[in-house]
C-alpha cells in the first residue's frame, strides 16, 4: 500500500475505515431496536416513525450536516450540554463524522434488519414460548440468530455507503487532515490543488475497490439470509 498511496492518502483511507466502522457498529443496536419496533409492533404514528427513519435517504446530506451543527455545536442545545456535563465534543472531531455517517446510513441498516425479521416465521417464537423461553431468551436464541444474515447485510451496506459520505461530514466537522478528512474529502481537497488529478484518481480507484468489496459482501450476506429462511 505504501508504494501506491502517500502517507496522507493512507491516513485518509484508515480514517475513513475507522469512522465508518464506529458509525455502523454504534448505530447497530438502535437500528435493531427500530427494525424490531417496525417489524413486530403496531402503534399509532408508526408511519411517521418509519418516515422519520428514512428521511436521511432523501434529505441533502449538507442539510443533515447543517442541522447537526445547529444541534451539536458547542453552543447548540445538545452539544452544549454534552460538552458541559460529559466533556464530549462532536464538532470538528472524527466522532462527529461518525455520528453524521451513522445517521445517514441508519436507514440502510434498519431496512435490511427489518426485512430479515419479517421473513422469520412468527410461529417459531410462539413455539419457543411454549417450550419455556421468556422474551429475552426468544430474542437472543431465536430472533437474533435468524436475523443475523440481515444484520450482516445491513452492516456491510451501511459501511459501504458510509465510506462515500461527503456533504454532512464537511458541513458538520469540516475538513481537518488526520481528524475528519476521509477519502471523499481527500479527493475533493486534491482536486482543489493544481496538479492533484493523479492523487484524486488514486483515491477514486481505492474507493471503487472498497465499494466493490463491500457490495459483494453485502450480496453474499443477503443470499445467505434468503437460504436460511427458505
Amino acid at each position, binding site marked *: 500500500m505504501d508504494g501506491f498511496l502517500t502517507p496522507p492518502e493512507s491516513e485518509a483511507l484508515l480514517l475513513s475505515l475507522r469512522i465508518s466502522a464506529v458509525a455502523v457498529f454504534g448505530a447497530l443496536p438502535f437500528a435493531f431496536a427500530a427494525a424490531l419496533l417496525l417489524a413486530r409492533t403496531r402503534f399509532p404514528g408508526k408511519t411517521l416513525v418509519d418516515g422519520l427513519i428514512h428521511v436521511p435517504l432523501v434529505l441533502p446530506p449538507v442539510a443533515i450536516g447543517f442541522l447537526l451543527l445547529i444541534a451539536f455545536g458547542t453552543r447548540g442545545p445538545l452539544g452544549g450540554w454534552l460538552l458541559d456535563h460529559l466533556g464530549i465534543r462532536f464538532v470538528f472531531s472524527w466522532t462527529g463524522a461518525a455520528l453524521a455517517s451513522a445517521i445517514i446510513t441508519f436507514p440502510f441498516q434498519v431496512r435490511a434488519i427489518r426485512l430479515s425479521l419479517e421473513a422469520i*416465521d412468527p*410461529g*417459531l417464537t*410462539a*413455539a*419457543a*414460548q*411454549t*417450550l*419455556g*423461553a*421468556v422474551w429475552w*431468551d426468544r430474542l437472543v436464541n*431465536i430472533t437474533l*440468530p*435468524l436475523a443475523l444474515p440481515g444484520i450482516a447485510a445491513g452492516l456491510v451496506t451501511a459501511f459501504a455507503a458510509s465510506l462515500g459520505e461527503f456533504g454532512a461530514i464537511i458541513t458538520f466537522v469540516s475538513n481537518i487532515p488526520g481528524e475528519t478528512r476521509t477519502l471523499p474529502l481527500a479527493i475533493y481537497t486534491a482536486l482543489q490543488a493544481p496538479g492533484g488529478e493523479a492523487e484524486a484518481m488514486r483515491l477514486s480507484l481505492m474507493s471503487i475497490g472498497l465499494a466493490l468489496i463491500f457490495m459483494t459482501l453485502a450480496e453474499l450476506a443477503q443470499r445467505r439470509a434468503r437460504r*436460511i*429462511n*427458505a
Partner: protein
Amino acid sequence: MSVEVSLRHAFGGFALDVDFALPRPGVTALFGASGAGKSTIVAAIAGTFRPREGRIVIAGREVLDTAKNVFVPPQRRRAGMVFQDARLFPHMSVRDNLLFGWRRAAPKADSGEIDRVIALLGLEALLARRPRMLSGGEKSRVALGRALLSSPQILLLDEPLAALDAQRRSEILPYLERLRDEAKLPMLYVSHSLDEVARLADDIVVIKQGRSVLQGSVFDVLTGLELPALAGAPPVGAVIAATVVAHSDDGLTALAFDGGTLFVSRLADPVGTRLRLRVRAEEIMLALEEPRGISANNVLAGLVVAIAESGLQADVQLACGPTRLIARITSASARRLALAPGKPVFAIVKSVTVDAPAAHRALPSL
C-alpha cells in the same frame, strides 16, 4: 393429572363456548370440521391465545381463570405443543431442537429420558442434521420429541399429521400409538379425521361451530348414533379393546373382548397382548337367525340398542354384552328385519382391523 377446560370467547360472528375435561392420561381427541374452533381451543390451553372468559386447570394447577384474573404465560404452563407445521428452529441441529425445551424445563427430566425419547421416536440417525434436511414425517417426529422433553403436564397436538401425505401419516401413527401406550400424560389430539381418532384416541370431544357438543370414551362415542349426524359423515365403526387369548393351528388368532371373542388371521403378538380392534360399520351384516354354513369367521350374538335412520341408510347400535357395535345397513333391510330396540340379532363381522401393539414392533429406526 387431569385437565379441565372451560372457555367462552366471541370473534366477529363466531362464538366459542366449550367445556370439557381430560379425565386421565391418554389421548383425548378434539374432533371437528375445519373452522370449528379446535386450534383456538388448543392455543388457549397453550396460553398463546387469551380468551375473554374461561378457566383452565392443568394437573391441578389453575393456568387461567378470568374471574380471578389468573393468567399463566405460555412459557410457564408446561403445555407441550406440537404444531401442524412442526416449527423446528432452522438454525439449530435436531439435537439442539430436541433439547430446547428440556434445557428450559423446571423440573427437568433426567438425562436418561432424552435417550428414551430419541429411541421412542427413532431419531438416533437424525440428531446432527438441520431441519431443512428432514422429510415431513421426520420433522413431525422431532417436533413431538421436542415437546415431550420439555417435561409437559399435557401434550397438545394440533393436527400433527395434517401436513403429511397418506404414506407419511401411516409412518407416524405407530409412533403416536406407542407414545399413547408408554407416556403417562394427558394428550389432546386435534383432528378432523375420524379414522385417526378411532385409531389413537381413548376419549373424544366433538366440537361443532365453537361448541363442545359431545364427549365420552372412544368406545361409546364412535358407536353412538349422535356422531354421524354431528359429523355429517357415516359412522366409522366400533373400537374394541381386546386381548390375545389363543393362536390356533388353523391360522387364526382368537381375541377376547368384553362380550365375546373375535377371530382374525394369525397375529405375531403373544397371548396376553392387549390390542385395539376396529370394526367398520359397513363391515357388519345383521341376521335374525344364527347363520350356518357361511365363510365369515365372526358371528356375534347381540341385542339392538337403538336405530337411527337417515334417508336410505340406517345406523343400528348393537350390544354384545357391555361392548357396543354399530352397523350401517339400508333402511329397507331394517324394515324387512323389523329391527327395534331390544330385538336379538346376529352380527356377521366381515372384517376386523387390528391396531397397536402389533404395529409397534415394525417401527423403523430411520
